[in-house]
């Protein structure tokens, strides 16, 4: 668009967009600000925004800086940042690791299953393809609470409760329809002529996928990966009901800080900030990639 826009109009739009953007973002900013307050400041009336005494106390308390182990290794950051009397309540790193393993694991497994399926649906569509796709999407509507009981019983039988493997599998299955759908719509936009040309040149199925298709599909796959990581990271029903220790991710970490006794806004904010920060940062850095493929075929 090479139209000249009057500066005044541009200014007005800019101001409006910034105001709305900041309003939408404000709750997150407020979490972050509150996490550096003491509990008393957190409920101050009238509320204070930046002019308070900033403290790391809450982060020390909820365990951002790991303690030294029995051999005295590590923990120097904690020693630097925290009052030694601040009791540490939880092992943030373990929850974080579990979140990472589960989110990435389910994303990889999901891709492994979804890419071939989406490929074949997009490039070799049969009569039933559309129905299969819609059916897949409909499995996503199975209400989790309704099937929690049987699934938990099955996991007990398999001795798979509280295991990262079962969480990876379950989250894969939950997000699989969305991944397939997203990849399918993306693949469909790749012109078939290119494939045909490759085939003329004698490329086999394997070469076709590996050397022709994949490079073209990378933006779509990247954005699928990102969306799936976000969805898996934020999942809080299955992860809370099927894990205890070994596989408990950040959703369980949050559940130990929601509504404890006494004043808790600052502690809750610190825990919240730590639970959302990794995904928020990842999201910001990769938002271009995320947006590029996140069309679900909406753009023609």
């Amino acid at each position: 668009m090479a139209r000249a826009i009057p500066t005044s109009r541009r200014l007005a739009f800019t101001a409006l967009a910034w105001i709305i953007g900041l309003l939408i973002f404000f709750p997150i900013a407020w979490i972050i600000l509150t996490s550096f307050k003491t509990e008393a400041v957190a409920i101050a009336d009238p509320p204070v925004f930046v002019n308070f005494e900033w403290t790391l106390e809450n982060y020390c308390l909820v365990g951002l800086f790991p303690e030294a182990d029995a051999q005295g290794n590590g923990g120097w950051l904690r020693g630097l940042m925290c009052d030694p009397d601040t009791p540490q309540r939880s092992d943030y790193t373990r929850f974080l690791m579990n979140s990472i393993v589960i989110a990435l694991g389910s994303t990889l497994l999901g891709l492994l299953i979804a890419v071939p399926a989406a490929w074949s649906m997009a490039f070799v569509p049969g009569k039933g393809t559309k129905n299969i796709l819609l059916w897949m999407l409909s499995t996503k509507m199975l209400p989790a609470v309704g099937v929690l009981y049987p699934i938990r019983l099955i996991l007990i039988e398999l001795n798979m409760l509280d295991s990262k493997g079962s969480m990876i599998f379950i989250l894969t299955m939950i997000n699989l329809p969305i991944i397939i759908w997203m990849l399918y719509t993306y693949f469909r936009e790749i012109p078939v002529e290119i494939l045909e040309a490759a085939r003329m040149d004698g490329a086999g199925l394997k070469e076709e996928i590996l050397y022709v298709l994949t490079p073209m599909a990378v933006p779509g796959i990247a954005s699928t990966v990102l969306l799936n990581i976000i969805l898996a990271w934020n999942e809080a029903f299955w992860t809370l009901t099927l894990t205890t220790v070994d596989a408990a991710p950040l959703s369980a970490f949050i559940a130990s800080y929601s509504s404890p006794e006494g004043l808790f806004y600052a502690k809750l904010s610190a825990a919240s900030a730590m639970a959302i920060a990794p995904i928020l940062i990842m999201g910001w850095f990769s938002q271009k990639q995320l947006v590029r493929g996140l069309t679900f075929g909406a753009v023609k």
Partner: protein
Amino acid sequence: MSLKTVLGATTALAICAAATTAFADGHATTITIATVNNGDMIRMQGLTEVFNETHPDIIVEWVTLEENVLRQNVTTDIAQGGGQYDVITIGTYEVPIWGANNWLTSLDDLPESYNIDDLLPAIRGGLTVDGTLYASPFYGESSMVMYRTDLMDAAGLEMPDAPSWDFIREAAIAMTDRENDIYGICLRGKPGWGENVAFITATSNSFGARWFDEDWTPQFDSDEWSNTLNFYIDLLNEAGPPGAANNGFNENLALFQQGSCGMWIDATVAASFVTNPNDSEVADRVGFALAPDNGLGRRANWLWAWSLAIPASSDAPEAAMAFINWATGPGYVEIVAEREGWANVPPGTRSSLYENQAYLDAAPFAQMTLDSILSADPTNPTVDPVPYTGVQFVAIPEFAGLATEIGQVFSSALAGLMTAEEALAAAQALAVEEMDAAGY
């Protein structure tokens, strides 16, 4: 972020995770303890090292969760025999039911040093089924009135040791100063069987109401219930904080600690939080009194004990028993007292604590707590006879689900979404339906 990076990162992480798992020692026993994120339990978690000094071969894994999530997970796990936990934190409502189902391990084998006869009889009775102890109390509580002495003085009133509901109402209205965010009375309004239903049921006992008559017929259509609910709603409307219908124990605690409540009728265990100068802005201005009554011979106080139990599905019952013996035995209070002061020890489980002068000196609320606990009688909670035990609950499996729904109805009435009469009619219908279906 390229695919390659993602792949690489995942592989690295997987190796990391595998390495950590391999690190765990094969000789030690690991026990998983599920507990509520209440202050006393968090303190217990913090003292794990002390436990390990005497039990180096037991690795303790903590699952500390918010009460509702914890209850949901523990109940489902034990009902399915999932075996996820070795020690669970449950209350006097669950223990009789789960014990009778043989879902809990008997604690009769606790060593001599546990001194079982030291437990307060009312608390011990609530955790015993057919003569077998199935859970060991970690802290016990009744409920009482906590009030601001300065606001009471300013209102020109004096709190008796055993107030009546009429006095509470009068005082609440006199203390309210909405302009300055001071509300005469804070009470539980948040829906849930352990939240507003606990409070309202205990209150209803003092109004002469009951959940069921001796034939298990629900009684919400009685005049006594109508009086109870109307009084409760009017009181909170006149002198309660805004949004009272969404305030539970924790919300009210926060309000009281920041000085917004004139009076608060709730768990005795809160006394140590509201008098703790680190957390409470009003620590030096709090008085205590027994829960109110209406002259009918029952006060509005309940009885509850957060207790530790071992699920029958645990694979490390000996280690679990050792932990319970440590955390609920007579020595635990000494450990806490030494580190955090006597006022912070878990109260309400052992008579010896109330004979300990150091504790009595440090805890001005001790006597009132003991009197409240001793005056609650779970086997005979109401004015008219009932077929059930439990002061603020009915010890049948159907209660939790039913009471939560009834709690939602009561909450809606408090929020003004329906009248008290409509709420009671709805509660009656829910109870009749549930009891019919359950085969009473």
